């Protein structure tokens, strides 16, 4: 049975960095945003081809392949970056607070609003247009995936038991050996679980951003997302359904062929003193292990690679002394570092000044529109959350308390959570257009599509984790239904429910960008909302609006996280933790 572990950030709930660092990071982000936009605008002088999308089903495998390649590149980049980032943050005391504050803000910003400037910048950086757009989309998926991976790796490094680190030091492990024998294995499980979440988020963004319009320019890349959107645009239901089918198939296949074997394999990295009874099994992994060649070859190759490196490192001077654990790397601040810091600060100041200058073009009606939009989106996101919770809590508890049912439903819910809601949205849209309805309900429905599954499978996991002796006590004392819910079930599932809601909330905010504004055939559907403002600004190329809307949305997400979710998390970790 697969249970989702609590989000990694819960381990670092205590806010330990001063406020000015947040401010600094926010300014830097502003500056970066402006930098990306201005380079983008500056360089955008070449025509960009729109790749025509064939709606033939035979073309589907090729499109699927393109999308998968994009995903794979983005994921590998994210993983490499996340590991580097986490490593530096964990071991460099001076940079640590800055890097963690940056992570905290960056993972709250909805990526989709960055799409236009990122693509613009990449298109201009790389002369071959196709590659430029490709890189833009890949970079966007990357930004959506990387932060939680980095956070996971960082927290893993920070929670390595002291005596393990000391053992590595006293036996004079080289950094290389420490990385492969202590740090990576210790972080592996967290990385695998966060990769699943990341890749699901990646699909969500990919489907959306393979086709988009900015100003008078259309961008289109061959892929599943553009296939689905073209089908929607032309109203080709057959193509639409086969496109969605392909997405679902890929998600299920990834789950069975990659994630399940990985989870089963990473079981050996579990940091436990006693072997646990419940294990994840994967037929694929068993198959691989049974094969004589595949079972031993990777290991043999691995040792062949490692052996000379370790030998050489052992002879280095570094490996001859015991390095103290309580001493940060040389705390000397070199003048270059200072100059770099000053340069970064100056650039940040200049960039944010420019950004603010750009914001001056915003008029009062614009601002009013944005504020109204912010309120509307806020209500929409939270009602989507409430509706999800309202049906998933009773359903999830009913399923979770019935082990046989849970064993069937749990994996399905988990796969459903990985299927990008963006793929289903066109169907929903066509349906709404036929009914003649607007986007008001549609956008909430879309958010629901993406959010409810996270809550459902977390609630199921929570209900399954309620100890049976507590349930027996409830039965023994003939608790009324009310008592059972308030005294046993709700407190029991609380930590899981919060975990699910936090993930769902992030997803819903991200979804708002695409849920509130859409083109179907020749119509533009739109409701009042921040997401709609972002899209409309993209369409019309109004960067000031885009910037301000993004700032609003980020501020709201960060505030909600700080004021509501983090507190609930702490409560879940202290009061409602079921300790064994």
């Amino acid at each position, binding site marked *: 049975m697969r249970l989702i572990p609590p989000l990694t950030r819960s381990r670092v709930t205590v806010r330990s960095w001063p406020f000015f660092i947040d401010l600094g990071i926010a300014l830097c982000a502003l500056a970066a945003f402006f930098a990306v936009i201005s380079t983008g605008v500056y360089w955008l002088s070449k025509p960009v081809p729109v790749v025509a999308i064939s709606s033939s089903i035979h073309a589907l495998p090729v499109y699927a392949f393109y999308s998968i390649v994009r995903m794979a590149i983005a994921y590998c980049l994210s993983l490499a970056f996340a590991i580097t980032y986490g490593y530096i943050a964990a071991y460099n005391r001076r940079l640590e607070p800055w890097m963690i504050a940056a992570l905290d803000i960056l993972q709250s910003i909805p990526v989709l609003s960055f799409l236009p400037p990122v693509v613009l910048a990449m298109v201009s950086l790389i002369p071959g247009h196709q590659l430029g757009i490709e890189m833009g989309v890949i970079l966007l998926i990357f930004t959506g995936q990387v932060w939680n991976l980095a956070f996971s790796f960082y927290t893993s490094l920070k929670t390595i*038991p002291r*005596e*393990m680190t*000391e*053992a590595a*030091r*006293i*036996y*004079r*492990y*080289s950094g290389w*050996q420490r990385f492969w*024998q*202590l740090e990576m*294995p210790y972080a592996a499980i967290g990385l695998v679980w966060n990769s699943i979440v990341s890749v699901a988020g990646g699909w969500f963004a990919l489907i959306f951003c393979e086709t988009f319009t900015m100003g008078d320019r259309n961008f289109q890349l061959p892929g599943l997302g553009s296939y689905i959107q073209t089908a929607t645009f032309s109203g080709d239901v057959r193509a639409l359904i086969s496109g969605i089918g392909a997405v679902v198939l890929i998600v299920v296949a990834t789950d069975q062929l990659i994630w399940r074997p990985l989870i089963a394999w990473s079981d*050996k*990295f*579990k*940091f*436990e*003193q*006693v*072997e646990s009874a419940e294990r994840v099994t994967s037929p694929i992994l068993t198959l691989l292990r049974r094969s004589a060649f595949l079972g031993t070859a990777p290991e043999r190759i691995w*040792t062949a690679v490692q*052996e000379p490196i*370790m*030998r*050489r*490192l*052992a*002879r280095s001077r570094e*490996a*001859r*002394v*015991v390095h*103290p*654990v*309580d*001493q940060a790397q040389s705390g000397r601040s070199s003048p270059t570092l200072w100059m770099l810091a000053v340069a970064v600060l100056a650039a940040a100041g200049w960039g944010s000044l420019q950004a603010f200058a750009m914001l001056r073009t915003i008029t009062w009606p614009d601002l009013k529109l944005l504020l109204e939009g912010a309120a509307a989106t806020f209500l929409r996101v939270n009602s989507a959350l409430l509706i999800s919770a309202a049906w998933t809590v009773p359903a999830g508890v009913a399923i979770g308390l019935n082990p046989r049912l849970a064993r069937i439903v749990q994996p399905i819910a988990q796969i459903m959570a990985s299927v990008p809601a963006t793929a289903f949205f066109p169907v929903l849209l066509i349906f709404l257009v036929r009914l003649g309805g607007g986007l008001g309900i549609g956008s909430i429905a879309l958010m629901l599509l993406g959010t409810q599954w996270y809550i459902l499978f977390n609630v199921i996991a929570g209900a399954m984790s309620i100890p049976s002796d507590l349930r027996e006590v409830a039965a023994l004392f003939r608790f009324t239904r009310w008592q059972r819910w308030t005294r046993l079930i709700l407190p029991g599932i609380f930590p899981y429910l919060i975990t699910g809601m936090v993930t769902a909330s992030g997803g819903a905010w991200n979804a708002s960008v695409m849920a509130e504004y859409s083109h179907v055939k020749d119509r533009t559907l739109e409701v009042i909302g921040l997401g709609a403002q972002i899209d409309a600004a993209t369409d019309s190329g109004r960067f000031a609006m885009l910037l301000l809307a993004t700032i609003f949305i980020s501020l709201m997400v960060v505030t909600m996280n700080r004021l509501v979710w983090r507190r609930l998390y702490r409560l879940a970790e*202290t*009061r409602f933790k079921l300790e064994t």
Partner: protein
Amino acid sequence: MAEKSPMREADTLNETLMQNSGVEAIIRAEKVEKYYAQPNENRIQVISATDLAIYPGEILALLGPSGSGKSTMLRMLTGLSTPSAGEVYWHDKPVSQAEVNVSIVFQSFALFPWLTVLENVAAPLQARGVPADERRERSMRMLDMVGLDGFEGAYPKELSGGMKQRVGFARALVVEPEVLFMDEPFSALDVLTAENLRSELLELWAKKTMPTRAVFLVTHNIEEAVLLADRIVVLGRNPGRIRTDFRVGTPRPRDRKSEQFTQYVDYIYKVLTQPDTAPAAVPEVRAREQKQPRYQMLPHARPGGIAGLLELLLDKGGRDDIYRLADDLAFEIDDLLPIVDGSQLLGFLRVEEGDAAITPAGTEFAESEILRQKELFRDAAQSNVLLLRQIRRALETKSDHTVPEDFFLDLLDEQFSEEESQRQMETAVAWGRYAELFDYDAGRRRFVLPDAQDEEAAAGEDGREDGQ
């Protein structure tokens, strides 16, 4: 500040002779200190300036109550931790620059769960660039030596605690360390397993099959120290410093029942329970710090434990040897000393020459029934424990009769490390709740005056009655 035992005069002499006879120490600490600087310019002294040396051929046991900095001392000697002042030498070279060849056996074993037993043992050799074949051969030999033949392919989680620690020993010995450090290696094991491992260790040492020249054992188990060590160093706390350093002359194997053995144990208890002589030269005490009321260190004992100890003592006629009490209860010093200290702090008990003697107040306490006991405890706690007195007074003064915990934690932080402040607070909460001095709301992390709650509840009820 080593105190000399009259009965061990000869041994101390013996040691001085040895030190002077030109045997070179493997590791030598000179005036090492450990302190943590606080943001407010106070510093928390963990270990005050201490000299300590490890000589070839000896098993040295470092003994002390929790909070005396035993583990910190071990880490400074191995180079894992940098002293705040002073220097550690490895054969005359500063430890930070020397090619130190030591191993540590950890309390929690610290085995890598994702490596097999063999891989775990071979990993340190890999770090030293030993070729694969030789690695395997040497590791297998070590596993053979500790009796783990046939387990090389197992993962640590498949092994029992005792077997895990055997792997820990094999891993430590495979690099043929000059000094084998052990950090409470037996305290995570059950009594029988620990006993078994201890005797096997002694056997290896006696037969010289163990490829190591000296052993340094950190422990809080007095009998373990007397059983194993050639030389025992006892640390006191607040701050950590050497209370006594002596040699155990009895040849091994030693008999726990023998007169000599009990004399050694008794002597160590006496040293540990003797009221601290003035702390060795407290450096740079700030004037500000002195003006403030200093909190005494609350021993981490539960009120129930204190009551239990006093009742036992009363049963034994009101006075007994602490060593015998520990023996009767099968307690280690870390279990018993806090309870003794706590009883002493509350004035229920006096420690004289290694004996615990119950006081009249203690007698009354032990003879009373539970409600009366709480009353007596409350009076004793309020008159003897500054922190509890302050919390109570603050609660009484404030109009809403509640005070956040952080307020007192801040005060404690000036004097203790963050971790210790937290533990002090936990103990204070346990005592205060028992004595009904105050109530503690764990959800809001606030202290509440119990009467206030009663009054509120009473007022509520009154209101209802009025309404009816």
